[in-house]
């Protein structure tokens, strides 16, 4: 943002060339990971393996979307942490309620 504050109100006289290398690199990574998920969905029968890989690959995708597309990777450290640390509550809730779901099934 810092550069744009100093432009005049009528816009710049010369428009810089687009620099989109990192954007397309992230796109190919996301596409590749999704393709890998499809490959596993069609070839693997092991339930445990599928669930763990899908969860890990989802986190990989989330990392690139939040880090590159939403630019969080390039923000200051304190901002990164104030967004990431609260999501620990989500991790806790996942563990707590999945166990709860399992015991509801047993009690039925």
């Amino acid at each position, binding site marked *: 943002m810092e*550069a744009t504050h100093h432009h005049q109100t009528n816009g710049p006289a010369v428009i810089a060339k*687009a620099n989109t290398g990192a954007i397309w690199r992230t796109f190919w990574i996301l596409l590749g990971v*999704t393709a890998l998920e499809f490959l596993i969905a*069609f070839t693997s029968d092991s339930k445990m393996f599928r669930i763990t890989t899908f969860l890990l690959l989802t986190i990989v995708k989330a990392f690139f979307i939040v880090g590159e*597309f939403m630019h969080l990777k390039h923000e200051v450290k304190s901002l990164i942490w104030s967004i990431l640390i609260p*999501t620990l509550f989500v991790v806790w809730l996942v563990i707590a309620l999945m166990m709860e779901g399992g015991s509801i099934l047993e009690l039925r």
Partner: protein
Amino acid sequence: MASHSATTSDVNLWGGGVEPFKASYGKLMMWFFLLSDTFTFSGLLITYGLIRFSHQAYTGDIHNFVFSHEYWPVPDMVFNGIPFLHGVHLPLVFVGIMTFILIMSSVTMVLAVEAGHRMDRNDVQKWMLWTILGGFAFLGCQAWEWTHLIVGSDHGLTVSNVWNTATRTIFGANLVENEYGPPAFADLFFFITGFHGTHVLSGVILNIIIFYNASIGVYERTGHYEMVEKVGLYWHFVDLVWVFVFTFFYLI
């Protein structure tokens, strides 16, 4: 405005003009809103997990799978249709197309943000338009997916009534009955993808407003295209949520 080169010692920290986290007010508030939205979506998806785990899982061979209220359905068998190919078993293909559309529109959005940094009005317009098109394409796909699920299969599911011995056939899914499995499965599907779809719809509306403003030169007069960035954050978040919905509903 605090200049970028100034160190914190030579500006008065409490005198205003200092951006916390070196991010503008608007972007910061968007981040905190998205964090709260993360909790909303997490609540919904974790509820899905809880209810799924409290139901019996299908343990038999996938080739013998039939729909039943006794166990949670296998997603490959529910989401297997694509438009114009009625009755052909193509698991995950259509949702794969939807995922691709949304990732693609995230890319065009980030290209619009990049064009905004360069104060390139034409490029911002071009990429915003592509993003809006991607949003509409996704919503169209979702409308088809919902219709497919609501209408149901050709043979339906025959269940016996609770109150007598007669049987009846259920076609499709709604909030009360579900051909594909326990009614809770359809409830959660419609509620979660519906909530996400509402987010996409609001995102498309915001994108249209931004496109319009960029076209009439509002941001050129303001001197920066930060509004594109803020709405971009929201749009990427919608994409991010879809990545999770995709994993939990369709893959696992």
